[in-house]
């Protein structure tokens, strides 16, 4: 019984939502699902947040390696929670907008959250260079095409490209690097994108059916009989 009901729920909910596209009276059920999901996710967060607190406090108490940083994480979590749930220094009080300027929550967001997130994201500038240095090597035909296509786009998307091939006459403009870069983006790139997108759609259809028909059940901790 424990395993039959979840599979049944998945089947019923899945098939109803697939068919809801075709039947106007139940057309908007797909949209309602997103609200249900958001509410369930908040409850699930109690498990997640609880796990975070448990692991880091256990690590701090037992003085395992790097236990000092666990204390910092727990403190950061609790301070942010208090600042947000009780709307500390928020002009609008408890009814004010949680991200109101001047509130502790928004201050912590601007001073801690944004610089850390933006800098972590910015590390990509270095990683993209080291990945290009390491990975773009003409090992085989595929890798060479990857290298050449990236090379042309790199040149084409900055003023550099115009300098290198600016002299090519208008008639042969396709070989002018910036135009070649745009052509690569709009023709071959498009073909590859389309093949991948169509493939993804078919993959999603097949996997969704496997989930709904109960062929794929491992996610439920249900062993395949």
């Amino acid at each position: 019984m424990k395993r039959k009901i979840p599979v049944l729920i998945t089947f019923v909910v899945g098939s109803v939502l697939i068919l809801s596209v075709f039947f106007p009276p139940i057309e908007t059920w797909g949209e309602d699902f997103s609200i249900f999901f958001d509410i369930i996710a908040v409850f699930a967060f109690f498990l997640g947040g609880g796990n975070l607190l448990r692991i880091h406090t256990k690590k701090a108490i037992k003085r395992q390696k790097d236990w000092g940083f666990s204390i910092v994480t727990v403190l950061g979590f609790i301070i942010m929670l208090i600042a947000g749930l009780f709307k500390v220094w928020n002009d609008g009080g408890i009814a004010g907008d949680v991200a109101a300027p001047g509130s502790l929550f928004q201050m912590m967001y601007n001073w801690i959250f944004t610089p850390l997130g933006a800098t972590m994201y910015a590390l990509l500038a270095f990683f993209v260079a080291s990945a290009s240095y390491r990975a773009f090597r003409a090992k085989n035909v595929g890798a060479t095409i990857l290298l050449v296509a990236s090379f042309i786009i790199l040149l084409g998307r900055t003023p550099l490209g115009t300098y290198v091939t600016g002299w090519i006459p208008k008639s042969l403009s396709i070989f002018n690097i910036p135009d070649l870069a745009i052509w690569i983006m709009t023709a071959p790139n498009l073909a590859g994108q389309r093949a991948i997108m169509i493939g993804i759609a078919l993959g999603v259809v097949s996997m969704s059916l496997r989930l709904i028909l109960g062929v794929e059940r491992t996610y439920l901790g249900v062993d395949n009989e």
Partner: protein
Amino acid sequence: MSWEQTFGIWLAAAFTLGIVSFLYRDNIFYKVCEAIFVGSSAGYWFVTYFWDNLYRKFYLQAFDPVSPHIAPWVGFILGVLMLTRLFGAKIAWLSRWPLAFIIGATAGVYMMFYFVSNAMLQIGASIKPVFVGSFGDIVSNVLIAAGTFCGLVYFFFSKEHKGVFGGAARVGIWFLMVTFGASFGYTVMSRMSLMLGRLDFLFGDWLRLIS
């Protein structure tokens, strides 16, 4: 500049340098930044979920004085079932129901969504006359149609990549490689501009070395 702003800028600069130090190697400055980031961001998202979803989407709708909605209660009940995991294995299996609901709904909603936007529209967009417009357009159109076709051949599962079929599959992977190379090259620019944003902060707002 108020003292808060100066303190804020110095703190942000310290965090920026702490994260960048990871490029050299893992060190104490990075560990501090990581710990603060993990803790504060987890708190941020819980607060956002609490006010956006629990308060606005559930409480305001379910207890709306004018027309209380029933639908949010479905989410609430399934949410409570999720919490049964906390009370021992005897009733923890109940938490599988909301999971089954989510997975079933996601499979149902996204199947049609992906099928319409990725498959139907992209196939529809591929069906257009080839010999139209200038010579350049003709070459592009032929390439797009052939590339999409060969790309699909590459993804074919039930036939070995041999002979003519193998040839088409190889042309397909070449098109995919052009797509990957182009996207990679195109994004090098955006990644650089992210770091520019940080450098503009460090040398502009913080050290005031640039206007």
